């Protein structure tokens, strides 16, 4: 029955949604909690200005003007960390689409039922995408709750846009993990490859930022993180072009996964 695998994946993982969501909401709450007032924010910015610039670039916190605002502080204090934490989510749940059950031998039973292979991939991916949306919503909820307890003027619309813009970049990483796991068939290899690509992507983005106008800068085009510039989003709003591009890349990777999974042996 259509949707059975989707709802099963949600039912099996609701506790994890809760843990991830509450954890991220707590992070958002703490980030807001440490901004007691605008003066303190200014002092923090001055302190950061004393730090080496490459380090600030690595932390994606080199824009002092942005950092001096509450939204800028949230973008650096929360979103710069959240995207890395969610990279772990992407790898972990990307493996759950096919690799974990194949490794455990459970796929034999599932695929002996009247279900096409593409549905296993699509329904599970959809379930983990919905779970991620819930986690992002809980995270933003934590930020909103903490904001409402302070007197700081925070543009929650921009914070929301930063949260929404983070979704497709995490989905790209999840789709990439799923595809690599289907192609290489070994979980450990898939984890190593995907992690390598994600870390490499982060470094390419960092190097490109640090050396603008060089070849390294143009290499940023191939980095996921180039398409999620949370500092720019918090200042100028969501970049629809980047979101669309990442969604298209996700769909292409997912299509590749479905294609590869339908054509290969299971569990060999």
């Amino acid at each position, binding site marked *: 029955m259509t949707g059975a695998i989707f709802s099963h994946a949600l039912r099996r993982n609701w506790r994890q949604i809760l843990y991830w969501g509450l954890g991220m909401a707590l992070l958002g709450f703490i980030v807001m909690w440490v901004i007691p007032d605008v003066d303190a924010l200014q002092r923090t910015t001055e302190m950061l200005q004393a730090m080496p610039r490459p380090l600030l670039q690595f932390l994606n916190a080199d824009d002092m003007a942005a950092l001096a605002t509450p939204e800028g502080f949230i973008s650096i204090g929360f979103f710069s960390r959240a995207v890395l934490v969610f990279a772990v989510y992407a790898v972990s749940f990307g493996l759950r689409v096919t690799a974990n059950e194949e490794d455990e031998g459970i796929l*034999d*039973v599932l695929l002996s039922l009247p279900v096409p292979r593409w549905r296993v991939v699509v329904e599970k991916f959809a379930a983990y995408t919905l779970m991620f949306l819930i986690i992002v919503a809980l995270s933003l909820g934590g930020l909103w709750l903490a904001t409402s307890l302070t007197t700081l003027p925070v543009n929650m619309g921009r914070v929301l846009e930063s949260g929404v813009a983070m979704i497709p970049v995490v989905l790209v990483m999840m789709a990439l993990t799923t595809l690599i796991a289907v192609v290489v068939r070994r979980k450990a290899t898939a984890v190593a490859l995907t992690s390598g690509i994600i870390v490499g992507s982060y470094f390419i983005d960092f190097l490109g930022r640090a050396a603008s106008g060089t070849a390294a800068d143009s290499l940023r085009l191939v980095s996921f993180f180039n398409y999620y510039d949370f500092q720019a989003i918090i200042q100028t709003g969501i970049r629809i072009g980047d979101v669309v591009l990442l969604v298209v890349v996700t769909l292409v990777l997912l299509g590749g996964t479905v294609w590869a999974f339908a054509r290969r042996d299971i569990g060999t």
Partner: protein
Amino acid sequence: MRQDNAVIETDRLGKVYSGRKGQVRALDRLDLSVQPGEIFGYLGPNGAGKTTTIRLLLDLIRPTMGQALIFGQDARENSVELHRRIGFLPGELNLWKNLTGDQVLDYVNSVRGRNDLPYARQLSERLSLDMGIRVRCYSSGNRRKLGLVIALMHKPDLLILDEPTNGLDPLIQQIFHDLMRETRAEGRSVFLSSHILSEVQAICDRVGILRGGQLQAVETVSALRSADFRWVTLRLREPVSPRLFDGLPGVSDVIQSSDGIRLRLVGDFDPLLRAVESAYILDIRTEEPSLEEIFLTYYGSHALSATSVEMAAR
């Protein structure tokens, strides 16, 4: 030759696995057919290609040559449609460990888009399976019972069972045999693999013998029985001469060992027991012949050595 009403029909079905150590031919040009209402035993030692055949039939792996038809439809092209009519029990059964038996059945039921839970409950009661326990807490035998319930609960037209009684206690094995007979009585078919001759003899109509990826023969169980023999070990208080057994009907290969007398017996026990009636018998032990020995009896040493040479060459 194509048989229109065959439930399973394979035509030169083959599978070669490619790995780091080169290619392994797991199944070689298999031609096989299973008829409606038949229990077909697929017999062979470990590594003979039984599981490969089953996985090909279920489209879990893809053939490197040939084709498999189930209910006249290509097992690969029409796999989803065919799986509605098939119940499957894998040889190594792994299920969702954090779910209870009930939850597993519920999930399988919803994926099939049916409501087979009332019959599933009947089956679990019949197999004495507690459905409220998490799969991770099941013994291997109970996990196997759950696998049988999954395979049987939608009353499929074809059951494909890989070593179904592995880990089941004798009482449950009997219930399993009854279930198979009931399946046959309802006109449904069973394809079961095993390496246990007695199990196949107990419930199957016909048997295919697989060895080294090649189908050696397809025989009725009654024909196979004619090759049936037992190894008998008699432990006696006082030693007797092996010559005592000379000319006894059905007795051959008599060997005197430290344990007593070991011999090969075809047919009834009575002549053997009468021959040793004057001796004090401490113990009688019987052993089933191995598949290798049955094969040797059935096809002769030439066939066996030819196959062994082929296997060694691979």
